[in-house]
């Protein structure tokens, strides 16, 4: 089975797997720093305008936020087991779990869309008509929109990558186990989950205990 998955310049499948997963890890390091640019601004402004941030944090919808966290964690579980199943030779099960991952990812985006609609109805877009007067509350919502927006773009990219796996894997179940793509895609999807795990307390848990 090895020959079919070997791509130049590699001469050995194991090396190729090492390279692909290591390459993906380096890329994930870069992705973390991308969000670090946002975390840094969030940290600075939360420090400069604590009242505005606490007040604004109470305005996000914790129900959507918590359910979406649980959904992404579950999708992470699905793709983690998919990889293990593929490597153990359960191709069909792996493929079904990829589909489950995609369904959960789409569900996340749909719920996020409902949440956005609610936010817009509550005028939670910085600018005229913004309901909170505290200094920094508008900046919190700039960060809310940018952080969740950039994250949603990542979810979309992840869905495309998992979708590619599912399409290619349907034709050839052995490919899921032999190709390094599965590993790399799963790593990317987990990172999307990890980023959301960090965004969740910043955006949804802020200020809940106060006022």
């Amino acid at each position: 089975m090895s020959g079919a998955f070997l791509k130049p310049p590699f001469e050995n499948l194991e090396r190729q797997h090492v390279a692909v997963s290591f390459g993906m890890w380096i890329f994930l390091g870069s992705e973390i720093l991308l969000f670090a640019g946002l975390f840094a601004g969030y940290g600075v402004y939360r420090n400069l305008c604590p009242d505005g941030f606490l007040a604004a944090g109470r305005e996000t919808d914790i129900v959507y936020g918590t359910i979406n966290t649980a959904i992404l964690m579950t999708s992470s579980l699905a793709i983690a087991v998919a990889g293990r199943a593929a490597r153990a030779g359960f191709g069909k099960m792996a493929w079904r779990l990829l589909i489950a991952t995609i369904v959960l990812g789409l569900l996340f985006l749909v719920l996020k869309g409902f949440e956005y609609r609610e936010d817009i109805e509550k005028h939670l877009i910085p600018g005229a008509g913004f309901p909170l007067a505290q200094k920094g509350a508008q900046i919190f919502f700039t960060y809310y929109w940018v952080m969740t927006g950039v994250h949603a773009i990542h979810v979309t990219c992840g869905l495309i990558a998992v979708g590619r796996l599912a399409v290619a894997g349907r034709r050839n179940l052995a490919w899921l186990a032999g190709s390094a793509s599965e590993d790399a895609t799963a790593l990317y999807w987990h990172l999307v989950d990890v980023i959301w795990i960090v965004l969740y307390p910043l955006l949804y848990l802020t200020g809940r205990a106060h006022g």
Partner: protein
Amino acid sequence: MSDVAHPAAPDHPATPGSAVPPDYLHDGHTLRSWLFTTDHKRIAILFALSITLFFFIGAIAISVVRLELVTPAGDLVSDDTYNKMFTLHGIVMVWFFLIPSIPATFGNFLLPLMIGAKDLAFPRINVLSWYLYVAGALLTVVTIIAGGVDTGWTFYVPYSTMFSNTAVLTAAMGVFVNGFSSVLTGVNFIATTHVLRAPGMTWFRLPLFVWAMYATSLVMVLATPVLAMTLLLIVVERWFDLPVFDASRGGDPLLFQHLFWFYSHPAVYIMVLPAMGVASELIACFARRRLFGYSFMVYALVAIAVIGFFVWGHHMFVSGQSPYANVVFSFLSFMVAVPSAIKVFNWTATLYRGSIGFDAPMLYAFGFLGLFTIGGLTGLFLATVPIDIHVTDTYFVVAHFHYIMVGGTVSAFFGALHFWWPKITGRLYPETLARIAAVLMFFGFNLTFFPQFVMGYLGMPRRYHVYPPEFQIYHVLSTSGAALLGVAYVMPLFYLIWSFRWGARAGANPWRAKGLEWQAPSPPPRDNFLTPPVVGEPYDYHPPEGPTAAEEQVA
């Protein structure tokens, strides 16, 4: 050394029907075979052509600026045009020439060859990296067509988000997209260096050029995304009017500067670390010496890359940053001088008792060495808070970073171009013309930028198109130097194109150099090596029996 530099080596005859694979230049002739290539060597050529184009766009922009500055009055172009010209020069030269210059061309071409690999680890990502560069470059061209941008290359807020009425969005997005090109190149280089080294090529046998690429990639991967996010925040504030840095709505403009310099200071090391790698290769080869203090050179490269992340605040001494932070950043900036000095001393020590050949690449390497040293030492001036307060935003700063980026990096770029030209094209360049160009570049450079140190110290601010008449003499000197520099840049364009067609054939190793790349044919075939390369100690230029006087003295 000049006596052996150009042995009339016979070309390996590519007789039809023989088993010798075609070299990479002749492995397919269609446009498609170039645009959809995954060969690192062809991608290097694609990058080289694109950055050359942008180098000349940036050069034309600065020519307008330099001509305007010949007289104290603003008589050639309007102040708006002037602002757009220096901005275009900065954006194009930094992101579309210097950042990709050595890594994306020579790094791409040489990294696999130097470690004995067939290609980079992810060839398709490599070509994607070029397409991202092109996409970013096209956005920059759109910016120019849309009337240009006048924020300076630094995009400082609040001017860029609230006041400038020029094409800030496309300019920022161009740099944003181009950033991903850097990141992917960095990922590729790091993974390749880890997993594709030939058997026997241990970490401490790697040529310093490879180490330099590795250190550069580290900076590219970890710094570039922060810039990308910062530019995205500018777009958010400018386009969607969401408050981010706007002080009237609780924002802090200094946060922008922090985030911007978190990338843009390390970006200086993206530019100069590869130049250091090139200089190490050239100096060892043309001094016929093993590189002095190899392992210290490696540690110094990595140290510069890492400490380079800790110094960004020295761009903000007068911005309103806390005095305590000024002291911290000032101290850390001094720290980065230590590994830089180690490198300069080791290059110099390598020359000691060498049999030095003054071929064109070595002349460029000497240029690099001297100019980088001046740039580095004036960097210490600028890291000192009181002096920096005096010369902030003057031509002293302009001169300082041009000594690093142009004197250092561009000299090394041309040195690399001449040194590896026989490997890349299989042809020898005309040596005399090349030496003339190298010397001209050195003098042209100093004539352009040394007066800027003086006028900056005397108080001439940067980015002004009208200035008091007492500075005119320095500006005239600078502009005439720029003209010389222009000639020195254009000369290689002509004689290298000539030599590509009509130059003498180069053998596999015209310099008798030691890197693995010289064991491959010139130009190399698709898979680089005809026989597996033999890995030995790096820079094995002189026989090991008996230490030389230099080594005895140090020991």
